């Protein structure tokens, strides 16, 4: 889901822009490595491929069809850093050329789809992609990459004060789960198709030690949990925490004076703690992503 401009509150879009900048810079350096000559055309063309692939209809039942989103496929085929860069490039083109997603909201969309989405698509494959449960691992990758991104998007909208009745939130999540399952199925089918054409194109992740596998699984669950938590829009615990730490009062002072205009409907204590909750939640995700990314690179396949 590409969030347009005008939906997110200032704290959210500004915060996510700030959060995504260093991440993208770091990933661009990782993805480039020493091989800029080879990587630039490959990543660019892969981005174009995703656009083109989205035009292909996958028939599902009577009269309906789905299409590939691509985050998990890219992660599996190119590795997470390169996939994140390609997704960022795709999101930039979608925002600028197709008005699909906002420019200020680019940071949010990047976090949702290029960072968390890609990572969520990669982790299952990294964990279980080398063994018997390969197809299931790829399916889970596709599934979580879409679901995590969507859950985060809904969470960001809720934190920004966009009114989504709880019933609608659950319905949306339900619909996204269906799309996510479709993505999983499509990703599995496509990876198998590519393998049939040229087995050398699909890399097999290296075997992992038991402890590392457990850590990754926990990280993955943690990511999912944070996503769901944000989506439910119930940061009560964090609100209490903010109050106890005196953060709220301090935050109030910071926000009150120069930016008096930035008061949204439903302002007051609720707004500040929601913003704080959102930012803290995202910082948590960010740190998890960094940690998981580090561990992957230390043990990962090429």
């Amino acid at each position, binding site marked *: 889901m590409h969030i347009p401009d005008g939906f997110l509150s200032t704290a959210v*879009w500004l915060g996510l822009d700030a959060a995504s900048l260093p991440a993208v810079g770091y990933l661009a350096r990782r993805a480039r490595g020493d091989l800029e000559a080879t990587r630039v055309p490959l*990543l660019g063309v892969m981005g174009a491929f995703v656009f083109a692939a989205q035009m292909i209809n996958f*028939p599902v039942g009577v009269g309906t069809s789905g299409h590939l989103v691509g985050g998990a496929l890219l992660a599996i085929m190119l590795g997470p850093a390169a996939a994140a860069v390609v997704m960022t490039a795709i999101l930039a083109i979608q925002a600028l050329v197709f*008005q699909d997603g906002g420019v200020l909201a680019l940071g949010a969309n990047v976090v949702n789809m290029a960072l968390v989405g890609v990572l969520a698509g990669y982790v299952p494959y990294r964990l279980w992609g080398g063994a018997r449960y390969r197809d299931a691992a790829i399916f889970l990758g596709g599934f979580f990459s879409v679901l995590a991104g969507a859950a985060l998007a809904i969470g960001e909208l809720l934190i920004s004060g966009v009114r989504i009745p709880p019933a609608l939130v659950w319905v949306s999540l339900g619909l996204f789960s269906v799309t996510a399952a479709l993505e999983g199925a499509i990703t599995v089918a496509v990876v198998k198709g590519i393998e049939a054409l040229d087995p050398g194109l699909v890399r097999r992740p290296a075997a992992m030690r038991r402890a590392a596998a457990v850590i990754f699984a926990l990280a993955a669950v943690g990511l999912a949990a944070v996503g769901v938590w944000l989506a439910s829009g119930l940061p009560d615990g964090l609100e209490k925490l903010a109050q106890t730490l005196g953060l709220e009062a301090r935050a109030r002072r910071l926000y009150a004076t120069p930016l008096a205009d930035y008061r949204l409907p439903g302002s007051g204590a609720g707004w500040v703690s929601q913003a704080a909750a959102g930012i803290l939640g995202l910082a948590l995700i960010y740190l998890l992503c960094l940690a998981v990314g580090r561990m992957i690179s230390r043990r990962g396949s090429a």
Partner: protein
Amino acid sequence: MHHVELDRWSRGRSLLHARDARVKILLLVAYLAAVATSPRVSVAWLAVYGFPLLAAVLVADLPVGAVLLRAAVVLPFSAAFAVASVVAGDSQRAAALALKSYLSAAAVLVLMGTTPLGRLLRGLERLRVPGFLILVVQFLHRYLFVLSEQAQHMRLAALCRGGWSFRQAAGGVAVLFARSYDRAEGIHQAMLARGFAGRAASPEPARAGWKDWLFLLAGLALVAALRFFLGGVWSR
């Protein structure tokens, strides 16, 4: 296809087209921020914020109807949430979602309609966006049309044979992937054949002139006026 049309618009020769890309990018961000942070919207708000956009479209000699229509692609998305907001009793937010997202999309179109993508990317690079990412976006855009055409042909071929199954569609995407991979290899060889050794050099470093600085100052002043003065009239 839309991006072909946009490409055509961007090669015009108006005063706006001639301005430095960095200036236009900065003004866009300022405008978008002003729109996004506006506390309240109204018809008057729409008129006041919409006027500079309309003026820009006219000065840039872009087709007004097409621009207005194209910006409306955001509306279906906004409409869903706007309706939810109205149902929740917050019609002010409903209007804000629709109007803000629409004006924002239109503003982006003005930038893209007056700046060829290559120049825009160069401007972004000079504004410290990582060069590697810029190059990836550049190559993506270059081959967007080529690969989309390939996918179109595949779709047509499949339709001619009575449509295709899930597995066949997956096979089609796999073929598209493999051909894309090969194409990237070919591009890589073509780059090496012409002496590429790691870093791409740019042809002309664009220099900002006094007109660009003037434009930037005037534009920022206008945005500030919109946000803090004219905007304040009805934000009480």
